């Protein structure tokens, strides 16, 4: 046997767990899902080919458009809100002051809390009459809304909860901040750049790959939001927090429309790909890679 063939066999032997797993738990399911998406499939009977019916129905399904709208509205609040708030926190936590490690711990811990627990907690925090959020708002003279009971406020309420748990993002930013070469700040300071200009001309460009990484992770995550609305509002009030993945779950496992759910799955995959692609494409204009 040639050396190349031997190496290949050795390599594939070590990769074999993943190769089998990839085929069984990713490739076959993805292919099946594509097939189901063109079928009428209720689990009780075997899949019945129906062409583009599911996709055509989706296009005329008001609920589908509603969950799409809700998901994107929520993303428009939670995504930039979380990324910017996390960046501000990271900049703050990167200052060299005594006791900083305590603050870092405090900021990180909310991201550890399982959604099931944070859902219960925030259900209580956002309670209209007795919740802490409205009590705090009350002390500065603001009459807080019924966060989870008012169709206009449920998405901001859920976004607020997701922003509270942004510790992961903060840690990734912090690691990035610590990689920025000191010399750049010193040079900028010598040139007379104040803190804001150093932030704008040194920190942000050097941090842009990390910001980009966090953006991509956030895009993939935000389309999958399920736990919080399922546990806290059951998609309500009046379906105002009914999200994409929630409707997909209901289509498949509540209404047993596996074909319909699969078609939604494929649309979700395409949206994720398109948004990530868009992020990659735009990144050429705003992400700065050192040494390239």
């Amino acid at each position, binding site marked *: 046997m040639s050396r*190349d063939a031997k*190496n*290949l066999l*050795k*390599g*594939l032997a*070590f*990769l074999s*767990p*993943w190769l*089998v*797993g*990839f085929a*069984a*738990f*990713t490739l076959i*399911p*993805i292919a*099946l*899902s594509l097939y*189901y998406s063109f079928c009428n499939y209720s*689990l009780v009977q075997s899949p019945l080919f129906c062409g583009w019916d599911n996709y055509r129905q989706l296009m005329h399904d008001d609920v589908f458009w509603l969950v799409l709208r809700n998901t994107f509205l929520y993303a428009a609040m939670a995504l930039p809100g979380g990324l910017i708030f996390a960046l501000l*926190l990271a900049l*703050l936590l990167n200052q*060299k*002051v005594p006791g*900083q490690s*305590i*603050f870092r*711990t405090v900021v990180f*811990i*909310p991201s*550890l809390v*399982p*959604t099931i*627990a944070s*859902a219960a*907690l925030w*259900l209580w*925090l956002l309670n209209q*009459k*007795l919740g*802490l959020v409205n*009590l705090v708002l009350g002390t500065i003279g603001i009459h807080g809304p019924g966060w989870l009971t008012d169709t206009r406020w449920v998405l901001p309420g859920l976004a607020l909860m997701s922003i509270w748990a942004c510790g992961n993002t903060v*840690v*990734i930013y912090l*690691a990035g901040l610590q990689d920025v070469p000191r010399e750049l700040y010193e040079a900028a300071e010598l040139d007379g750049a104040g803190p804001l200009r150093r932030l704008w001309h040194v920190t942000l460009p050097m941090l842009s790959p*990390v910001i980009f*990484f966090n953006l991509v992770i956030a895009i993939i995550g935000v389309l*999958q939001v*399920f736990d919080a609305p399922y*546990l806290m509002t059951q998609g309500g009030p009046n379906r105002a927090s009914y999200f994409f*993945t929630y409707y*997909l*779950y209901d289509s*498949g496992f509540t209404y047993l429309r596996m074909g319909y759910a699969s078609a939604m*799955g*494929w649309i979700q*995959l395409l949206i*994720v790909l398109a948004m990530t692609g868009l992020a990659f494409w735009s990144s050429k204009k705003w992400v700065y890679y050192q040494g390239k």
Partner: protein
Amino acid sequence: MEKSVKRVRGAGVILTYAALLLAGGLMVLPFLWLISTSLKTVPQTMEYPPRWIPNPVMLKNFSDVLRNPRANFALWTRNTLIIAALTVTGVTFSSSIVAYGFARLKFPGRGFLFGLMLSTMMIPFPVLMVPLYTIFRWLGDHTGIQWLGTFRPLWVPAWFGSAFSIFMLRQFFVTIPDELSEAARIDGCSEWGIYWHIIMPLSRPALSVVALFTFMYVWRDFLGPLVYLQRASQFTLTLGLQSFQSQNGGTSWNLLMAASLLVIAPVILLFFLAQRTFIQGIATTGMKG
């Protein structure tokens, strides 16, 4: 902290502290509220304005939750720990084998397969949820071994590696000097021997990151158990807490908060025990690979 680093001075320090206190306060307040409520009586939770220090301190709330006939915390914890143990062992073991192949062996097609593996991380779980369900159902109908309604769909896939863990371990394995492997090869050590006797013992920090993250994933997972588990006797903590919550919906906030605290506490304890592993692990994921 490096001594040479110029520290923030004067008004800067005060401003920084003010901002830090504000931010830290916002993050911590919900927890204090959680603890405070979990120790209150029901009428006290309804008081307006509320008081932060409960009087009397109802430690009894916790035993009420634990002894509640509709909440079987011991069983839910046991179920979660069984799934976690099987998943953590499986992910750590299989991912390290695959990561070894990606990091320490040279063969045609390696780059392509690595890229393929990374791209699978972008596939949202909801997309796979429906077909996986039908696959597990089919397996149950055709092999005589039931999958749905058992723990199997939750832990068996873990034994085939997880893309995220393989990536993490691979990043670590490539930093181990090649000379170590070469020397062992000259001594006639097999590839498996190098993996098991040289690379694995050197990789404890990375392996613990993977184990820890996997454990956290299982502890938090809700959608997976929701789809695959059917009977209350199999519920994990997250599913159990949900059933407890929907039975007590909105009525007794004190018990709900006590139950939530019981689920959060182990995670926070774990964080304090393994703080460094956590932070380093997350920081690595953000590094340009």
